[in-house]
């Protein structure tokens, strides 16, 4: 029965997508491009969840809030330190690059500090204990943002140009979307190189597989875990920069919700699985864009979270290993 209902729903979804392609192709492809752009931001956040889960089997609830702090760092640094404002031309490139580095560094440091304070003392405690402290840490970080920037939206200058890259038919692709992809892809490549090719990456993979054995092989397990949190935080910082400059507004309590959506992406792709997180994030970005876009009978942005979390529940209940398979010490 469940399979039947599932197939029927999938069929309805296909009909809906097909109808939209035929009926209003320009809107369809426009929405597709928006979805990929949003997916890139989610991918960076989802990778942070998946890295930490892969090594500690811990859902780092505070990650979403670190991401939000990254957005705040970006706005503060770029406007106050580097005096970034609209219509500056090519000079924004070094500014954005410098902000990116600083924001990544700050978020990485914060994430590693959270690990040191809230998770490391509970390394040998029951598994749900660090999960509970993660919620506590998340609330604390959220209120740090509240104390720093106040309860209202803060806005960033809209520095990414909105001019067209290309326009085919009614579909336009603007520079701000391309820039998001252009910043995400090198970061992803760098991460892939780091995990696959370097000595430290090898230590991370070994620690994820078996902490005791890797300690016996001379790997400093605590340092490796700290390093993983540093990397995850740096990715959140990069995502925070992209979010702040692309969406141009940030508020203290957005991080938790967006973090949960990104976590859904990580679960969808298979938690602990790095390519899976990127795939899941692009899918979630597409789902969100199609849900909110100007399409025939799209449910609208009121329902985005309900839909995304329904997907989360369905995935966890029916296919907890995700689309590409879970890569954790016990599940892999």
């Amino acid at each position, binding site marked *: 029965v469940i399979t039947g209902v599932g197939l029927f729903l999938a069929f309805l979804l296909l009909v809906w997508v097909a109808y939209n392609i035929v009926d209003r192709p320009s809107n369809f492809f426009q929405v597709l491009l928006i979805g990929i752009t949003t997916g890139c931001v989610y991918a960076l956040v989802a990778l942070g969840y998946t890295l930490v889960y892969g090594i500690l*089997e*811990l*859902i780092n609830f505070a990650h979403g809030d670190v991401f939000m702090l990254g957005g705040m760092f970006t706005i503060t640094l770029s406007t106050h330190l580097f005096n970034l404002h609209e219509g500056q031309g090519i000079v924004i490139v070094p500014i954005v690059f410098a902000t990116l580095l600083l924001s990544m560094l700050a978020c990485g440091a914060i994430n590693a500090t959270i690990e040191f*304070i*809230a998770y490391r*003392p*509970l390394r*040998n*405690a*029951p*598994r*749900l*204990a660090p*999960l*509970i*402290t993660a*919620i*506590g*840490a*998340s*609330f*604390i970080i*959220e*209120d*740090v943002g*509240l*104390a720093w920037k106040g*309860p209202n939206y803060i806005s960033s200058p809209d520095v990414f140009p909105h001019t067209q890259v290309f326009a085919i038919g009614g579909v336009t692709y603007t520079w701000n979307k391309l820039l998001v992809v252009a910043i995400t892809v090198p970061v992803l490549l760098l991460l892939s190189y780091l995990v696959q090719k370097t000595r430290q990456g090898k230590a991370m993979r070994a620690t994820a597989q078996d902490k005791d054995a890797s300690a016996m092989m001379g790997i400093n397990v605590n340092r490796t875990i700290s390093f993983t949190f540093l990397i995850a935080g740096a990715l959140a910082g990069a995502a925070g920069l992209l979010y702040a400059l692309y969406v141009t507004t940030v508020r203290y309590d957005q991080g*938790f919700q967006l973090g*949960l959506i990104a*976590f859904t992406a990580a*679960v969808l792709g298979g938690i602990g699985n790095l390519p899976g997180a990127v795939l899941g994030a692009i899918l979630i970005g597409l789902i969100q864009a199609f849900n909110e876009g100007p399409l025939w009978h799209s449910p609208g942005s*009121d*329902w985005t*979270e*309900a839909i995304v*979390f*329904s997907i*989360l*529940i369905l995935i*966890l*209940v029916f296919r*907890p*290993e995700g689309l590409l398979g879970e890569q954790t*010490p*016990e*599940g892999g």
Partner: protein
Amino acid sequence: MSEQLTSHAGTRGESPSEQVGYRNKARAWWRALTFEQRLLISLGTSLVIAILLYFVDHALSYAALIITAIYWLRRFPARYKLPGEVAFIVLLAILAIAWTTPWSLVLLVAVIAAITWIPDGRKAWGIPVAFLVLAILYPFYSDQMFTMPIFGVWPDVGTGVYMLVFVMMAVGLNIVVGYAGLLDLGYVAFYAFGAYTAAWLMSPQFPHSHLRLGAIGLLPGWFGIHITIWLVLVLAGCVTALAGIVIGLPTLRLRGDYLAIVTLGFGEILPKVAQNGDSLFGFNLTNGPNGITPLDAPGFGHHLSSWTGGFLPANYLQCCSAKVNVGFLHIHHQVSSYDVYFWTAIVLLIFTVFVSLRLQYSRLGRAWIAIREDETAAAAMGIPLMRTKTWAYASGAFFGGIAGAYYAVFKSATFPGDFYFNISVFILCMVILGGMGNIWGVIVGAAFLAYLNQEGLANTGSWLNTNIHVAGWRPNINVPLYASGIYGVIILVVMLFRPEGLIPSRRRAAELHEGVHDEPLYDHEVAGST
């Protein structure tokens, strides 16, 4: 002072008597002292603290001294006990007569001291009954209470209702988290179910249906479903328990952290549905962000009211004419409708606590504890895992539903904004602070945090902003704004330093005393299974 405490952080696998780590070393040093040395050190320390606190707030220093005095009176060996008690009572009497100490403070200290002197064999029921009597009488003396240091005035009776409702919810969540060891991050969903059930059955929300069943105080021309609150409370509990079973059946076979995420997902979806539920395929189910309001007033109706001679009020909102005068304590109290809501909440809480206590050592309760401690072993002993876990979920949901329904009736409204994730964490924080698995601890933790949320944080904030000044600098902090961060700090500190909570469950304390440190608190995950 902390003989019974022990932390499982950093001392895994070692018996607490081993002198490893600064905490255990300090404990061993403290135990090696003689009684007189301990008493002297403790009194000296508290005197120093009291003198320091005197410069901040006079009342704080008295509080420090009184707490130390009560702590030591309990621990006096037999030969010192009588002189100690006499000295304490004489001191209290002097304070009451000679100084302008408010009588309520003296009385409170005397009552607490009396409670600590209940003989050991009768403590099990004596302490709860004593506190119950104090709580039932609270509306009469609440406006006579002294002003507390930092926290200011005592909570009013309306806050008391709020506290009781949240205590009920925490006791319900304790069944899921404390007894069965299932981390539920979406408990607010059950609260919402209960609240909306009450709202649908007691309001003009569905104008096309017309059903009346013993509802009180209806205006002429009101349509919709109107059922008496006593039936609605039962219905809300049952509907919510059913929702718990429906949510639980597919999800409870997931491992611990995935279950937490799924419950979190439900807790996020439900308020969204409530928020957007004003046009579900054209049907107005929840009235959207405006919420459903007003709800019918609770009451027993004129028949029951006149039959009991006015003891049961006919309509809570038009209550009451009774007056209570106790001249020598300056009590002149007219019973108000808040008081009746308060006493009804106490009755509901007694029911909750009674059921929860009876469940704890029942066959089902023992099965929950077995699952919490080792799921595989429990299954091997023939405990049906799914059914037992689902029962935990349903029982927790039942009380969450009743509490939600009662709170909706008390507020006479239901808004989707009441059901966000931070309420789930707020209730979880109560359970963790009090002590997972210990119902008395959970009650204390929940009452304290609910009070903080409603009045305490605002009072504390104004105290901070007026009393703290360093070289002309005064803080200007809006403390209630940072409520969730404060709960975050509480969760973090309790989990890191005292994971068994302020008043730990006796079973956990025993486990910790025997040094079973790698015995998981509530981890039912065995490496290798999915």
